[in-house]
């Protein structure tokens, strides 16, 4: 039986490539088990955070409401990893957060972040205003 081989256009190849990539991404997403945004053992909550890679710098923002500026710590664990922690002005219990089936309270925010490009950690600058932390990391320029 002769099998007629259909000629594929450039668009077909392109579509197929993106379909494969989409499937891979779906598999990757599914491989993560969703966890809570808090750690009861450490009494910490994970803050909302965002990172923007700009041509000359990386800007990280972290929402740290109800925190004391004096307790804020931003550490570079290595050339690509940031650790952020801050103490809250008052403890917040699960009950206050509208959860009655867990017991416990939180008093700190804690987060880790991986910077996807090379930056100069030593030149890090931070700004804290109304509970919002902004971190500026100049990018290492290629020679």
């Amino acid at each position, binding site marked *: 039986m002769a099998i007629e081989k259909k000629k594929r256009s450039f668009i077909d190849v392109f579509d197929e490539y993106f379909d494969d990539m989409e499937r891979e991404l779906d598999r990757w997403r599914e491989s993560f088990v969703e966890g809570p*945004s808090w750690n009861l053992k450490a009494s910490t*909550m*994970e*803050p*909302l955070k*965002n990172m923007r890679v700009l041509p000359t710098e990386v800007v990280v*923002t972290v*929402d740290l*409401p*109800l925190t004391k500026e004096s307790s804020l710590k931003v550490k570079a664990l290595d050339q690509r990893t940031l650790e952020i922690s801050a103490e809250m002005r008052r403890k*917040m219990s699960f009950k206050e*957060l*509208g959860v009655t089936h867990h017991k416990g309270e939180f008093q700190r925010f804690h987060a880790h972040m991986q910077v996807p490009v090379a930056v100069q950690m030593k030149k890090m600058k931070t700004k804290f*205003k*109304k*509970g*919002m932390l*902004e971190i500026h990391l100049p990018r290492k320029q290629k020679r």
Partner: protein
Amino acid sequence: MTEEAKIIEKRKIPSGTIMMFGFPDVGLVGVIAASHLIEELDLDEVAYLDSTLLPPIIVLHEGLPHSPIRVFGNDSVLLAVSETPLAADTIYPIMYALIDWGKSKNVKMMVSLSGIPLEERQDAKELKVFAAGSSPEMLKTIKDGGVEILSEGYMVGPQAIMLQRCSQLGVPAVTLLAQCFYNYPDPEAAAEVLKGLAGITGVKVDVAKLLEKGEEIRVKARDVMKRTQQEMSNMKKGQEYDIPMYVS
């Protein structure tokens, strides 16, 4: 209204009300504003959305199940609120169901409460409120209410579909957008959108408590914001930053 998405009424719905919408979106402006309206106006649940399009979620309040999309109200206002972000492919049928139902109740105006992301939000000294209307008459109402018109640009999400559907059906409608954080709950923006609402509709509430509890709201809203970020990304919300290219 379709079998996939229908509104179940829990009590008699008055005619001629103003119907508002507060759905999870940028800065959670609509949801935070809606939650404050419910508290300040002492609104009761009057109806809810029953839909197979929603994920298998119920919201438990005092041990009893509730739909994540509910309509609160009194004699003069109705307020549709969602406690879960809408997936991009469910926005049309769900919004159509709510709007068609509101039209059947002869609402005199529909108002979406939402936000518009501001790039340098953290440094903004004041937050502007913009609005778009469903008709030239509504643009005049917006101007008379002291709110600036968002004349050009893209709008993405439930508030966009609300405006379009109302325009098609001839229902007077406004989408109010306060400048806000894209990714973070923004109670200050919610307070501004409520001031805009007061100017256009006369529905006034004191926003002092909302501002006072702002940081607490930001702690509580983290998880909803996180889920909303995922849906915003799916619905290409970032297009609101785009420079439009008009085809005339």
